[in-house]
């Protein structure tokens, strides 16, 4: 499976498809940190929320890099389950790299306030990015060509998911649990002081359940969609 993950990453990077999401990441970082320094937790909370659609898009691109027939060849080589998991792992590794850049870059140009809460804020920032990364990979998977069968349906899934995450994630939403808690995380971190542990636990549990459902759905759909 490691060989398949590495093959897909190599194909994604060599094929030049990594360029578009990379530019989007730089734009997002420019917008967030262009206005000066903020407390770590606040900045990272917004960064994770703003990166969610980019990470989902990038994950879809990673999963769509291979021609359909090559994906099926990989399936005969490592089995259906192995092929599906290797795709998600490749997407997650790239998303992790993007998150690492998004978290380290602001330190280089003074985007984060250095103070007592910088370390706690950074740890909370790692959590916030992870809580955006895994659902984004799941959304990218559900929008991938292997599941949706074509470009139009894939883009529709991606756009609708990105909009719903924001709309249903707003305060006072009628069904916030339908989407991953990306906006809720940004709100919880919107203070220099760390949020209560119970809030973090609730958000993490909520994200874990949502991801289990979305990734389970992806796995179930991929059983019959090669």
């Amino acid at each position: 499976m490691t060989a398949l993950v590495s093959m897909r990453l190599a194909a994604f990077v060599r094929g030049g498809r990594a360029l578009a999401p990379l530019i989007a990441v730089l734009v997002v970082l420019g917008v967030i940190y262009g206005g000066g320094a903020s407390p770590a937790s606040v900045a990272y909370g917004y960064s994770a929320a703003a990166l969610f659609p980019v990470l989902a898009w990038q994950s879809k691109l990673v999963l769509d890099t291979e021609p359909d027939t090559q994906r099926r060849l990989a399936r005969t080589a490592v089995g259906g389950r192995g092929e599906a998991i290797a795709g998600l792992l490749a997407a997650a590794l790239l998303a992790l790299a993007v998150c690492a850049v998004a978290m380290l870059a602001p330190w280089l140009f003074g985007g984060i306030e250095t103070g007592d809460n910088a370390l706690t804020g950074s740890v909370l920032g790692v959590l916030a990015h992870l809580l955006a990364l895994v659902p984004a990979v799941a959304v990218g998977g559900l929008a991938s060509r292997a599941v949706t069968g074509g470009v139009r349906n894939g883009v529709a899934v991606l756009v609708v998911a990105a909009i719903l995450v924001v709309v249903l994630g707003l305060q006072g939403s009628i069904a916030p649990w339908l989407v991953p808690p990306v906006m809720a995380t940004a709100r919880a971190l919107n203070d220099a002081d760390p949020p209560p542990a119970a809030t973090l636990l609730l958000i993490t549990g909520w994200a874990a359940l949502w991801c289990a459902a979305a990734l389970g759905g992806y796995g179930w759909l991929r059983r019959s969609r090669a």
Partner: protein
Amino acid sequence: MRFDGVWFRYGRRLPWALREIDATVEPGQTVVVLGRNGAGKSTLLQLAAGVLRPVRGSVRDRPPIVGWVPERFPADQPFTAEQYLRRMARLRGVAESAAGEWMERLLLAEHAGTRLGDLSKGTAQKVGVAQALLARPGLLVLDEPWEGLDAAARTLIPEIVAEVTATGGIVLVSDHRNEIAGLPGATHWQVTESSVRFEEPTTPADEVIIEVAVRRADADQAVVRLRAEGHRVLDVRDLAPPQPHHGPSGPDASSATPQSRADLPTKGGSL
């Protein structure tokens, strides 16, 4: 390996591509899947390879290592032929040297550094054949493997098929031009109207030889047509010039005498 009441369609609203296929393939058996374009040969082969999942029924006892040669090799990938085959070898969990061995054998060595997208159709098809053989397959599924191959590589396919079956492997091969009809002991499956008709392997004792004269210009087409119908074309040769004292040419010239039959080669000939 067994097809157990397999039904397949590509979408809920689409008609069935294959209906209620029940079939068994024994170890060491070669199955030639015949049928017109769009009959469902590729679908059947992909179900056998495990690439597609039956909508109803199941394919049981599939050998663990499956080699699948798709009808069209996916050349739109940013790797050279060698990089691709080495990566596929790692994917299969075999030594990367297997890639070099198959590149030698399939006469791919000179294209090792060529990007997949720049390969000719036939060379890309050879890469497709090589990737299926990196780990010795217990089931080899070949979807029109001759498309675009040159004469030297074409003769390799029956050799490879024989090697796989000799070690107890199963080979399924689709072949709309009936190139493999000469393979001894091959069972024929005819795919028509979403179902499969099984034809027992023919033995030399079941066959007779008919000599037919066709116009020179039509010879190619006649050979293709005869092969597509499942007949073996043994030989193509010029007619002897008519002998004036034996009467007019025509029907007499094409009738076979026991003597001329004995002159025919016993193995499959070609144009």
